[in-house]
Structures are given as C-alpha cells and as structure tokens.
C-alpha cells in the first residue's frame, strides 16, 4: 500500500514538471497592428495596444487569450483616431473590449497556426491566425522564461458590423498580432 502511494505521488510530481507552461502577456510588448486600403490610393496602418492576457505552450499545442484596447487605436493622426473610435468604425464607447481566444493551436518548427474567435465591435467570429515567428528562452534582463510570437490574418471589417465608407475604404483589414509573455 505504501509503495502504491509513493508511486502515485512521484507520478504526480513528474507530470507537473512536464505540464503546459503558462505565460502572462506583457502589455508593453503585445499589440495588434492593422492595415486598411485608403480609397485604393495607399494603405493606412495603425496600432491597438493590449490590455493583457495569457498563453500556454504544451509541446506542439497550446492556447492563447489576448485582450486588446480598441480605445488606444493610434494611426499617428488625432482626428482620424477619433473617427476610428466612433460608431463608424470601432465604436469603443459601446464596445470597449476586443479580444482573441484560441480554440486550438498547432505549433511547428517554423511557426504554426491558431484557430480561435475574435471579438470586435460586439461580434465574435472565428478567425485563423498564421504564426510567422516564435521564440522561447530566458529573458536576458529579467532572467524569466519568456516566449513570444508574431501572428497574422486578414478579416473583413464589414462582417464585424463596420460598414462605413465601403467600398472606398477597404473591407479587408490585415492584422498582425505580436505577443510576448513571461512565466
């Protein structure tokens, strides 16, 4: 009986040592960038800051959940940013939360893919991300185990309810999400 208890205890210890690693998102190094066509003449780019989140790496799989702050939208032009915050686009007063939560993650040697749901302007729709770069290791300054990845996708803003200016202002919204977190 004593031997069985010891076996169970040691198995539990061993499994916790190899359990999925959960990282807390560093908002200072986590953000989303976007690009939308402006009347077909040029591409307007902007940035949305992160409010936090976490991700887990478990071998070749894992999970990710990131919260974004649409009120922080910054395209380098105050008046345009006010317009982007209005009901014409991000409607930040009514929908102050924007988030992405994965349903499945597949990691490969050169990146991987994420299936999940993007919530924006009060609508939640499935969106797939392609991981284009990923690195894990010890942070050179904090000495904490740290992981980061870049992911990209393209969504249609009209499907989230933003109809303003279509089709002159592009419907396709390219997104780049850069995430960094530490344990």
């Amino acid at each position, binding site marked *: 009986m004593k031997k069985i208890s010891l076996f169970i205890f040691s198995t539990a210890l061993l499994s916790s040592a190899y359990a999925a690693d959960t990282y807390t998102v560093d908002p200072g190094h986590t953000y989303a960038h976007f690009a939308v066509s402006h009347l077909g003449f040029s591409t307007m780019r902007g940035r949305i800051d992160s409010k936090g989140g976490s991700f887990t790496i478990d071998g070749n799989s894992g999970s990710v959940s990131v919260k974004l702050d649409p009120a922080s939208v910054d395209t380098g032009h*105050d008046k345009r940013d*006010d*317009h982007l915050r*209005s*009901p*014409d686009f991000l409607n930040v*007063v*009514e929908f102050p939360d924007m988030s992405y939560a994965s349903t499945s993650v597949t990691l490969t040697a050169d990146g991987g893919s994420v299936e999940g749901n993007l919530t924006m302007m009060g609508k939640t729709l499935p969106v797939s991300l392609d991981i284009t770069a990923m690195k894990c290791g010890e942070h050179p300054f904090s000495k904490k185990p740290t992981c980061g990845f870049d992911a990209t996708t393209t969504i249609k803003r009209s499907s989230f309810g933003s*109809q*303003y200016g279509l089709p002159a202002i592009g419907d396709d919204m390219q997104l780049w999400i850069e995430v960094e977190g530490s344990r």
Partner: protein
Amino acid sequence: MNLLNFPEIQSGLIPFVSSLILALVLHSRWPQWSALSALAGFYIGAASMGVLDLTPTRSANRIFLLGLGFVAVGSIVDIITNRSSNSLIRQICNPIGLVILAIVISVAWLIYSPLSRQGGMVMVGSLLSAIAWSALIAAGLLTLDRQPIRAYTAITFLALAIGICTALGASILLGQLAIGLSASCGALLLLTCFTNVQRVPLKFIAVAAFLCAAIGVSGVIFAKVTWLTLLLLAGVPLIVRLPLPVAWSRLAQASVVSLFAALAGSAAVSLALWQSAQSTSYY
C-alpha cells in the same frame, strides 16, 4: 461606379425622393399618413447606408427600433387628442407631456449603458444634461403641432444642424442619419407650402423629436459633440416661433422661418466647426 455609395445620395437624395413620392401617393390621406412618409424616407436612407443591421445590439439599432415604437406612442396620443377636450383620459393626463416623458426615458436608456462604465459625476452630469436637452427638444417640437410650417421647418433645420455638428465631431454615420431625417422632412415642408394642412400628426412629431434628441445626445456620447453645441441647437425650435404677418403666403412664411432656423442652426455649426478646426482634418 455605384451611386448608392455616395453619402450625398444616401442621406440626401434617397430620403428626400422616397419621402416626396410616398407623400404624393398618400396625399388623399394627408396629413395623417403622409407625415409618416418622412419616416419611411429616413429608414430607406438608413438602409442604403447599410446600418439597418440589428446585431449586435448597439445604439444605432436601438434608435431605429425605438423610433418605430414612437409611431405607436404618437398614434395613441393622436387618438386621445382628437377626442373632445373634456374626455376622461385627457383630464387624467396631458398626452403631450406623456410623449415628452417617453422621449426623455428612451434617450436616457439609450446612453445609460456606456455612461455607467464611466461612473461617478461624469455619468450623472451627462445623464442630467441628456434628460434636460431631450425634454427641451421634445417640448419645443411637440408644441408646434398646430403650426405645420414652423414644425416642419424646425425639424428640417434642427436635424440638418445636428447632422453637420455630429459629422464635424467624429461620426459621419450618425451625422448622415440626422441629415437623412432632415432631407425626409424637407420634402414634407415643400409639400406643406402648397397645401392647406392645419395640423401635423403627433405620431410624426413624436418620432422626429425622438430621433433628433437621440442622435444629438449620441453625438455627445459617441462623437465628441459638446453640450454647448446642443444648447445652441435647442434654439432652433424656439426661434421658429417668432411672429410673422398672417397675410403672408405659406411659401413666404416658410422662407422666413427657414432663415430664422438656419440662423440658430448655423450658430451651433460654427461652434462645431471652430472646435473641429482645432485639430488637423483628414479625408
């Protein structure tokens, strides 16, 4: 090139023409049914902007649905006010007062959710300002029901000024909605100049007053319009009451009342323009 994608078509031509055609088709039942053609014009214009999407629930959707609700409220009030003045129901309550109350409650409900996230004195101050302004607009417009030229002129210019101020603030979409309402009512103002209508149905004024109040307050909460701008806009339903010679033709009366309304509206637009000019514009 799709003409329907142009804002001038969506919030100008479509509501104006739709409203005018429907009013002419329904002219035999003027003014009870023709006044509703302005609302149809407004909703057709909104549909052409692609904003009549009912999910997710947002303030614009609530404005559209509540606007339709006020058709029912206004219809009931019309029935009550058309009865004799000593009917029991009129002795118990003032129907116009009830509509004003309904408009104030609806506008407060519309903005309560986003304001509650801000909390504190900002929420209380904004809520009280919204209630006071909605009541002022509703009372100012609803009491013009026996003066059709003044009523249609006030709504046309008030909605136009709200639309311009909101577009100058931050939301062109909300601005377009108000301008669409203005274009719809403008069609009825034009027809009223050539008819002998003596009264505007309350079902129409109730909806128009609610839409003006709701879009104006939404402009402050969502699109950087200031309360001072709204205060100046509240002068529109008041200034149209300035006396005019009774002998004048309806067209002459409408022209002069329009000048009065444009004067009050342009004061608010000038303020919004000045505030907008503080930051660099873009297109």
